[in-house]
Each structure stands twice: as C-alpha cells, then as structure tokens.
C-alpha cells in the first residue's frame, strides 16, 4: 500500500513534467498543425543555460531558471524564424515543416555535443531532494512535490494567459483557423512567435526538472518522445488532453517500474499509445476532423 501511494506520487510528478512539455508541443500543433520534433531541443537549451548560469552566479536558482526560461523561449522563436517561417510562407504542406523540425532537433542536439561534449552533468543541489513524509502515509522526495507544484503553477498561468488576455484570445482563434484569424486582423507572424516563446518557456521548466531527475546530457531531448505520445493519447492540439495524457503516462510508467520491471516501462508506454489510438483514433480529447469532399 505504501509503495503504491509512493509510486502514484512519483508518477504524478513525472507526468506533470511531461505535461509541461506536451502542452507546449500541443499548442504549436494546434496553430501550425505539425509535430515540432525540435521541441526536445528547447528543453535541452533550457537545461544547459540553467547549468552554466548556476556555475557563473553561484547557485542562485531564481536567476538561473529565469535566464533558462527566457533563453529557451527566445531560441524557440529563433528556430521558428530561421527554419519554419520560410517554409510555411511558401507552402501549406506540413510534412516539410516536420522534416525541417527533425533536422533542427538533430542540429540543436549536436551543437551541444560539439561545444560542451556529450558527458552527463548533474545540476548542483539547488532543488531540495530530501525525503518528505506525506501525511504519515508514504515517503517521497521533496523534489517530486516541488515539480508537481511548479507544473500546476505554470499550467494555471498558461490557462490564465489563454483565457484572460487579448493574445490568448488570438491564439484560441488561430487554433480554430489560422487563416481566418489572419484575415480578422491578427498579426499572424507575431502570434506564432508568441506561441513558440511560450512553448519554449514551458519546455525549459520541464528541462530543468528533468535534468535534476536524470542528469543533463545533449540527448535528454529524446525524452520528449514520451511527451509527444502523451499529447497524442490526449488528442493532438488539445491542451487539457495533453495534461491528462501526460498524467496517465507518468502514472503508467512509475507503476510499471514499481511493480513489474523498470525495463518494461517504455514498452508499456508505447503499448498504451497504440491501444488508445485503436480505441479512439484521435486520442481521448481529440477533435474528430471530418474529411471535406
């Protein structure tokens, strides 16, 4: 019983980190309708900025994470400007964007391999990881509770941004129909930049927590595959779907690791993806898009 509760908390904490990544990915998908495979790169950029700022300013996590968030957001905007904008202005074939994003993800990963090397780096102990007792029922690490709380904080922030601000309204309009939103006077290029900035920023939050959990290395971005899987389980382009899918995935992964075997966890993740899609081909919350004749 205690192990179960512990694994549930761990699962929710891992799932909430996936949610931060999956929501950004889903947000980009809802506007531009392509899978941005470079999304994992933003997470790694955030992680490395955090690591080097911590080394430079003497373990001040607030300055380091602020810089990491901004840096990842700005690089996401730059990636969009350099690689995606010329393509989306020329054609509406999303496949080209997808291939370009794969190229971009390889580029970002290998910029780090070339400049700082491929070795694993541990962040200095700026985030507490000491054990915490949860209502006398289970013991878990303070880190898990903290990452869960931070995820809730950032996701509610995003929700407020999308529902209360003018730009949020524009983003919601664009997710219905980008072209029409443009015709209604929304500055589409600026809107896409804002969306990428937000996506990069959320990925960096996930990146910092993941680099504390698994240490930091250039291929850490590959973990976003799981966030993509979560977003697809939830329904591509649906933000609540991305959150629910991430939590389900985090729980499934931790429960498998705890009760079956940790080698099976990836098989379970991908198996769940396939089974969910067989049951509901557009994910749990996905819009069913009817073919236009």
């Amino acid at each position, binding site marked *: 019983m205690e192990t179960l509760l512990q694994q549930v908390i761990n699962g929710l904490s891992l799932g909430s980190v996936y949610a931060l990544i999956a929501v950004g990915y889903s947000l980009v*998908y809802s506007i531009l*309708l*392509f*899978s941005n495979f470079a999304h994992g790169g933003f997470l790694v950029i955030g992680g490395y900025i955090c690591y080097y700022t911590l080394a430079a300013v003497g373990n001040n996590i607030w300055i380091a994470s602020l810089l990491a968030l901004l840096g990842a957001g700005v690089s996401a905007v730059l990636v969009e400007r*350099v*690689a995606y904008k*010329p*393509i989306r202005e*020329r*054609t509406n*074939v*999303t*496949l*080209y*964007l*997808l*291939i*370009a994003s*794969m*190229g*971009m*993800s*390889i*580029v970002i*990963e*290998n*910029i780090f*391999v*070339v400049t700082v090397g491929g070795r694993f780096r541990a962040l200095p102990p700026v985030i507490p990881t000491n054990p915490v007792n949860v209502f006398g029922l289970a013991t878990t690490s303070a880190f898990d509770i903290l990452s869960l709380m931070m995820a809730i904080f950032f996701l509610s922030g995003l929700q407020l941004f999308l529902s209360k601000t003018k730009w949020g309204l524009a983003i919601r309009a664009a997710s219905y129909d980008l072209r029409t939103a443009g015709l209604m006077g929304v500055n589409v290029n600026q809107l896409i930049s804002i969306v990428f900035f937000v996506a990069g920023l959320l990925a960096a939050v996930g990146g910092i927590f993941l680099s504390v959990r698994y240490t930091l290395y250039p291929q850490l971005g*590959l973990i976003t*595959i799981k966030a*993509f*899987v979560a977003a*697809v389980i939830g329904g*591509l382009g649906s933000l609540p779907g991305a959150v629910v899918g991430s939590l389900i995935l985090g729980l499934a992964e931790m429960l498998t690791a705890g009760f079956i075997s940790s*080698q*099976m966890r*990836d*098989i379970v*993740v*991908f*198996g769940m*993806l*396939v089974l969910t*899609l*067989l049951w509901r*081909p*557009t*994910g749990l919350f996905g819009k069913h898009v009817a*073919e236009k*004749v």
Partner: protein
Amino acid sequence: MSGYLEGIIILICINSIAAMGVSLLTGFTGIFTLGHAGYMAIGAYTAAILTVRHHVPWLVAVLAAGTLAMVIAYLIGVPTLKLMGDYFAIASIGLGETIRLILENWQSFTRGARGFPGIANYTTLPVAAAFFLGMLILMRFLINGNYGRAFKACRDDFVAASLLGFKTAHYRVLSLAISGFYCGIAGGLMAGFLTYLQPIMFDMQKSTELTAVVVFGGLGSLSGSIIGTAVLGIVTEVFRPISQYRMLIYGAIMVIIMVARPEGIMGQHEIGPKLLRSLFSRKTVNEVDGTHG
C-alpha cells in the same frame, strides 16, 4: 576495387532497398512513417538467427526475413492504418521503438543489447547489387501498374479515390506490407554485411534517416529516393574525418533542403526520357501533399 569503396557501395545498395520501401509508403501512398527501422530490425534478426542457429542457406534466410517483416507489417497495418496523418506518424514511432525494445529485452532469443555476433559475411557486392536491381525492377513494375495507380490515388485524394471504388483501406495496408518486405530484405542483407547486430542500430535515428532520404530525393520519385540515399551515404563518408561535426552537418542539410527546395532533389520526376522532355517543355509541377493522405 578497394574494400572500403566496396563497403560504401554495398551499404548504399542496402539502404536504397529500404528507402524504396519507404518511398512506396510515404512518396506514393502518402503515409508518413517514422518507424521503418523496426522492420529492418525484424529482417536482420530473422536472417541472423536462421543462418547462425538453424544453418538455413542465406538466400532462403533473406527471403524469409523479408516475408516475416511483411507479415508483421500487415498485421500491424490492419488496425493502425485507420489513423490519419500525424497520429499514424507518432504511432509508427511507438511501433518501431516497441520492436527495438522487444529485441533488446528478449535476451534468450536475441542476446539483447550485447549484440548478435558471428553471422556469415554473405552480402558481397554482386549479391547486394543483384538484390538492388531486382527490387528496383519489381518496384517499377508495381508503381507503374494498376496497384501503383491505386496507391497514388489514395495519396492524392483519399475521399475521391474511395468514391471511385478503390478500397483505400486495403491499398494502404498493402502498401505498408510491401514496404515492410523491402525493409525486411534490406535488414537481412544488412545482417550479412555487418556480420554483427545490435538492436540500437535500428533506433529512431535510423527510421528518421530512411524517411529523410525519401523526402530529400523527392516524394513520389523512386529514382529520387535512390539518389537521396546515395548522396546521404557519400556525404556521411566525406565528413567521417570530422565525425564530431558530422551529425550537425547532417541536421543542417535537412533543414536547408527543406527551406531551399522542399520538393526534394527530383520533385516528382523520374530519371528517363520523360524528365528530359519535361525539362525542355518547362511545365509547372504540382506539389505533393504527403501528410494528410
């Protein structure tokens, strides 16, 4: 001919066979995949286990490798090809990774991550070239025949094709099965070329590469896929001395091609008298919509 050069040519022949398979699925049927390294892995391990443990002649083993990959592709295709666009792309990542993870964890059968050594070196240059030519001729017959027209109809307009009486679901599954066969054969030849297998050789990077060369070459162009494979194979070898930067350049090339010439090297053209004629008459070429087949 030096052994080094021979090796490169054999590798390009093998990769071209796999690329032809992906070209059929992505270029001609409009189904985007990111998991075809999985079928190569099935082929490679089938050929390896049959020749090493059961002393089956290598030619039979390679054909069995292709057949098994085809059967598995068919069984996977029947339920999953109901998924459209990016949903199938993400599901195919999941399926490809699942195949790799199963091979990695089924220690008693595949020796897992330690690798499978001691395969006879049966893939010599004449063997690879003969397979390449044979498979190329088969594929040309296929795409220029009735089946090829049905595949292209599914790609160009899914709804219209079904209204014209094409069993689109049937053709999509068939296309996946045949592409699985090609990748299985390529995998079987790969086993006889490398004489040593590891599941990690068939990871997502390999799948991405297969799809990338097809897009490089031009979606809907068989000769383009082969040129794409050859160009990538040669570029990889040229940059081997600066191996650190190799992947960085590879990723950058992917982005640059998509930005500069998204329709790929060949567009939808094939090498032949038709190409020359169309070059002189300067007809405009329609773009291929590969994602939402």
